[in-house]
């Protein structure tokens, strides 16, 4: 089985700085981490490889320093890693990102399964996983909380929904996005980390994956961030509710109903 795990390096901090010109996040100088949701994807890839054999490859698109997140994936058991990095990829929205990743997956070749985290904590869009599946015209299953079974040609997964879950089976090749319930990601060991420092991480450019330059980067992105602003201030004063317990309950219920919370 040949698996690609798509990962993203994201800023760790909550106090993000935004470039006033481009309206994009200034990533320089900010601490970067492997997107927490992606650690579950990496772990699942490694566990499936250990169980069924084959190879698991980590793939990321980002600035050169995103290599660190790929190394982290190697340090917990991924076989090799590839970084898509070039100025031409800059400013990609989820459409262009999933296009570039899909092209890279094609280029790697013979992939059975792509695993993504359910979403990245900086954008929270959850669009790249299904986007990759759409670009490749592969089957997809999102919010996967368990891989139930795998055969040489298909995978059976448990998908989480608001009202419960379902179990579905699809033939390879396929894309899944995984939620936290799926496993417990291991923490890199010192040995693994020291070994990962010695690995080569090849960098692929648009030409390497045969990308149509009109479909990558800002040019390939249908969406534009036109403005960013601080959120409106939360509140000015506290409304105090006092009295007997029954009075308090009734006043609070009124407030909840007023706001259609109950």
């Amino acid at each position, binding site marked *: 089985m040949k698996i690609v795990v798509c990962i993203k390096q994201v800023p760790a901090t*909550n106090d993000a700085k935004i470039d006033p010109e481009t309206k994009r996040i200034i990533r320089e100088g900010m601490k970067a981490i492997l997107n927490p949701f992606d650690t579950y994807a990496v772990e699942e890839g490694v566990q499936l490889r250990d169980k069924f054999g084959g190879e698991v490859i980590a793939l990321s698109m980002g600035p050169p320093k995103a290599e660190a997140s790929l190394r982290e994936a190697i340090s917990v058991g991924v076989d090799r890693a590839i970084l898509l990095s070039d100025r031409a990829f800059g400013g990609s929205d989820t459409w262009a990102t999933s296009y570039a990743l899909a092209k890279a997956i094609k280029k790697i070749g013979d992939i059975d399964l792509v695993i993504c985290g359910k979403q990245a904590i900086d954008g929270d869009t959850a669009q790249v996983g299904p*986007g990759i599946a759409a670009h490749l015209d592969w089957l997809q299953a999102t919010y996967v909380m368990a891989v139930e079974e795998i055969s040489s040609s298909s995978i059976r997964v448990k998908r989480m929904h608001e009202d419960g879950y379902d179990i579905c089976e*699809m033939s390879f090749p396929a894309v899944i996005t995984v939620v936290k319930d799926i496993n417990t990601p291991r923490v890199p060991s010192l040995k693994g980390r020291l070994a990962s420092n010695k690995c080569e991480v090849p960098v692929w450019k648009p030409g390497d994956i045969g990308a149509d330059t009109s479909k990558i980067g800002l040019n390939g992105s249908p969406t534009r961030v036109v403005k960013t602003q601080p959120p409106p201030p939360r509140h000015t004063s506290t409304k105090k509710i006092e009295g007997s317990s029954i009075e308090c309950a009734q006043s609070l219920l009124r407030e909840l109903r007023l706001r259609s919370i109950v």
Partner: protein
Amino acid sequence: MIAFTDAKRKEYRNIWVVAEILAGGIQSVTHELTGAARTLADLRKSEVWVVVMGSGIEEKPESLFAYGADVVIVVDHPGLSGFIDETEAKIMKRLIIKYKPEVVICGATTRGRALIPRVSVMTHCGLTADCTGLSIDPENGDLLQTRPAFGGNIMATIRCSNHRPQMATVRPRVMKSPEPDPGRTGRIIKEEMLTSDSEKIKQIIDVFHSTETAYNLADAQIIISGGRGMKGPEGFKLLKQFAQRVGGAAVGASRAAVDSGWIPYAHQVGQTGQTVQTKVYIACGISGQIQHLVGMQSCDLIIAIDKNPDTPMMQIADIAVVGDLFEIIPEIVKGITNL
């Protein structure tokens, strides 16, 4: 990507909503989005269309007219009984090509967030997730989509002028559901599911419904959270009851409660737990140490219930209820049940 010309852009009209159907029923997020679509359509002097895909849809699609729909497209087919992303995406693509909507809005539910990204790639459209505000340029129909980014620290406004349709998802309970107007009428269009829509599909083996707690903290719109003031695991049972009555609410906890062994760590909100930004956060018996506050202070509405009116949590709350939560919460639970 080649931008649409003005003439091509003008071919696209009307505001679409993709309905959320669970177990044959139309979910309230659909009503909320229909209401939001109505406002946009009025500004554009165009129509609201709702796409309903499912199998054996029990609820009459006509009910959507009351919420502001002018047209309901119904695709009712046994092949749509389970959620098969690929099939629904193909149907959506066909309908979009056929009817050319200007805007497509979908609920940011697990299904919506699986379906719409696929459609947006297939139709070459821009898509913005989890919008909290939508407005439209009445002249050219550009959709201005506002959404929080970076843990709610900034609000970004996004536009995709060069392509049509423009797509957005909106979380349940973000938009207010309009008052239904039973007198409104509209048209129903029945569309077929084609065999080509369901080639190479996946098989749904089994479906399990549970209202237990499918919601985790990050996905919940309402969190009911308990601290040291809950006094023990029994207190959290009370909060779970409260959460179930509210519906779709998750139970959170302060570190003090987790460290006392009263509730699993997965529920911990705060610096060393999870950061949440829900619509509503109800803090019960949580004093509000700074480590907890940083994890929840960007929630839209904060309600605190505590005996002590002077805790930091009671100070930052929008609504502070002073009293014994072991008496107040059961009263509220009773009150909700009797609604």
